């Protein structure tokens, strides 16, 4: 039994962790900017947004450069391109509105009160984004997103991938290669089996609780704010390799001088740089494509949050396997994505404990005429019980210190136009933060967090 003071601290810590996680929950967007720039319908790049087709993957690897707009051009004295700018900027807007209802209402956020929050939350908007997405120079393109989030009530910086891309002829085969500057490991990836863009897509916000534990590469590192630089190559439309490094670069960090430098008031600060790597192979046959891959990263970080950024670090070693199968017919489209992530933690900056955290997700979707569809997915996170990491706390905490969460997510989709989607999603938890019943020590069961979620998603 926790003392009331500890409980309050647990609630606060868990709420902070949860809100920050929710802000960086996988976000996934289709961008009419690209349609405007290329003149291609959304179906060129997406099966149904945001899942990419083989052409969409190629378009991204090519640096978002394919451009069919009139250009403003500039030439050097020796007739080389010095400027190549779209006549009109490829700008677009995304608007999401949603309704969220949990099986059991959440308790009031004031722990002194015994009542519940209102259940059935309308968010209008849930999120609204402004994109610049397209070519910005002859070999440089960008996907830049600013998002208003209902969580924060403010605009913030969101997914960003600025890349240089070129081609080389190696032994008669084409090599697409490039450099990506981005702010989330795997946001630059082109397969929908990696964390940033994995299907089925959980778009819920803080209106519904989500599990507390996540590996570094599955959002925890991006949560604390990073910037990454990676070099990639895609050879013969089959072999993909990428290597990069990430360094802490949080937005909105106060610190001692506004935008930094980072100090003890920051959290999860990477020591030096965290290397990231990715290998994948894609096989294509007529309307089918199948990819298998592996990715991972090594993160040594200072916990911060009152401790100086020196001395012992927490070490995270993430190794993941992923696969995707897609069939894109004229009438029927179906795909399956799966990922398994294993993280070994050596937490020298806490108490030296060695933990593991594993996440597995598998999901499949089907669409008829790109209009009517559905998806079903299973997710499971398991790991070492550690009461210092997963503390008790109402709703968001864990009574037994276990990070284990498991459940299903199913959705029905209606896509009346290629840029408008309505989704009805249901998430069911078998286990939440360590247990199926009274998981938080405050009497809440895992199934109390089962969620009905209705989403309207407009891109224009």
């Amino acid at each position, binding site marked *: 039994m926790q003392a009331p003071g500890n409980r309050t601290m647990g609630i606060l810590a868990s709420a902070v962790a949860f809100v920050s996680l929710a802000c960086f929950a996988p976000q996934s967007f289709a961008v009419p900017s690209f349609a405007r720039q290329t003149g291609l319908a959304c179906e060129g790049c997406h099966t149904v947004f945001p899942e990419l087709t083989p052409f969409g993957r190629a378009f991204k690897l090519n640096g978002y450069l394919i451009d069919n707009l009139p250009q403003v051009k500039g030439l050097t004295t020796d007739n080389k391109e010095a400027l190549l700018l779209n006549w009109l900027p490829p700008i677009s807007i995304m608007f999401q509105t949603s309704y969220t209802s949990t099986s059991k209402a959440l308790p009031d956020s004031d722990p002194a009160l015994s009542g519940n929050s209102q259940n059935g939350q309308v968010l209008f908007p849930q999120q609204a984004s402004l994109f610049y997405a397209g070519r910005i120079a002859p070999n440089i393109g960008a996907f830049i997103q600013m998002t208003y989030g209902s969580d924060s009530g403010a605009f913030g910086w969101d997914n960003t991938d600025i890349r240089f891309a*070129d*081609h080389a002829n190696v032994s008669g085969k084409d090599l697409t290669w490039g450099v990506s500057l981005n702010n989330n490991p795997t946001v630059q990836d082109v397969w929908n089996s990696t964390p940033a863009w994995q299907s089925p897509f959980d778009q819920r916000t803080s209106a519904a609780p989500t599990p507390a534990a996540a590996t570094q590469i599955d959002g925890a590192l991006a949560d604390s704010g990073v910037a990454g630089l990676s070099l990639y190559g895609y050879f013969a439309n089959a072999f993909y390799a990428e290597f990069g490094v990430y360094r802490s670069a949080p937005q909105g960090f106060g610190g001692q001088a506004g935008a930094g430098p980072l100090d003890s008031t920051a959290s999860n600060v990477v020591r030096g740089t965290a290397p990231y790597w990715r290998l994948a192979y894609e096989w294509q046959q007529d309307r089918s494509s199948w990819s298998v891959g592996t990715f991972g990263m090594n993160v040594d970080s200072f916990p911060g949050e009152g401790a100086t950024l020196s001395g012992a670090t927490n070490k995270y070693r993430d190794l993941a396997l992923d696969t995707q199968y897609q069939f894109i017919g004229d009438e029927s489209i179906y795909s399956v994505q799966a990922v398994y992530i294993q993280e070994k933690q050596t937490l020298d900056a806490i108490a030296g404990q060695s933990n593991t955290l594993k996440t597995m997700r598998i999901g499949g979707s089907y669409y008829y005429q790109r209009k009517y569809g559905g998806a079903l997915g299973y997710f499971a996170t398991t790991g070492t019980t550690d009461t210092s990491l997963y503390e008790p706390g109402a709703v968001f905490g864990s009574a037994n210190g276990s990070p284990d969460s498991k459940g299903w997510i199913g959705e029905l989709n209606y896509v009346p136009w290629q840029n408008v989607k309505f989704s009805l999603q249901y998430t069911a938890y078998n286990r939440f933060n360590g247990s199926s019943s009274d998981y938080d020590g405050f009497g809440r069961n895992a199934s109390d967090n089962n969620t009905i979620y209705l989403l309207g998603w407009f891109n224009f």
Partner: protein
Amino acid sequence: MKRYFLELLVATASLLVSVSAFSGEDAEIAKLATRVCANCHGPHGDSVSSAFPRLAGQQAAYTEAQLKTFKDKTRGDPYAQAYMWGMASQLDEDTIKRLGAYYAAQRPHPAWKGDAARIAQGRSIYENGMPEAEVPACTLCHGENAHGKDSIPRLAGQHPEYLVKQLVAFKSMQRANNPVMHSVTDKMSLEQMQAVAEFAASK
């Protein structure tokens, strides 16, 4: 360790840049074809997906004509609208001509191998037509070897599924840029289209 990572990055980038030159008779068009067209039509015009036609070995005049009808939007079948109206919108006459020549010079895909019985049925239609339905023999325009000539397209080695889709589009007038093919397909059944497409692709 960190230093080695950086050195590896720089060395790899240098190697890649050093081999990034294209060669060939029309390097500029080869570059365009590789960087843009190949994303759907495959390296050297040999596409993998039957959603997109193989362009390798296609008659130059036919490729040119199609690019022009995409550009002026007179070819309006669904895939043309979704993909090619945009892709062809900024192509000038010279580029269109050179793209036609580039793909005509590429090695065509080998003959398609399919169901022997259906190919035999298709052979009859292809070589003799269907006089009772006033469907002329395909050989009259596309040639015995289905290689086409000038603005008549090559069919040999093409994706059969793509050919069927075009025949259906001609019949329904979704692809209304060829009145001759509309009259040819007007009285053909889907099964007959599939058979003749498989035979033509098998040449």
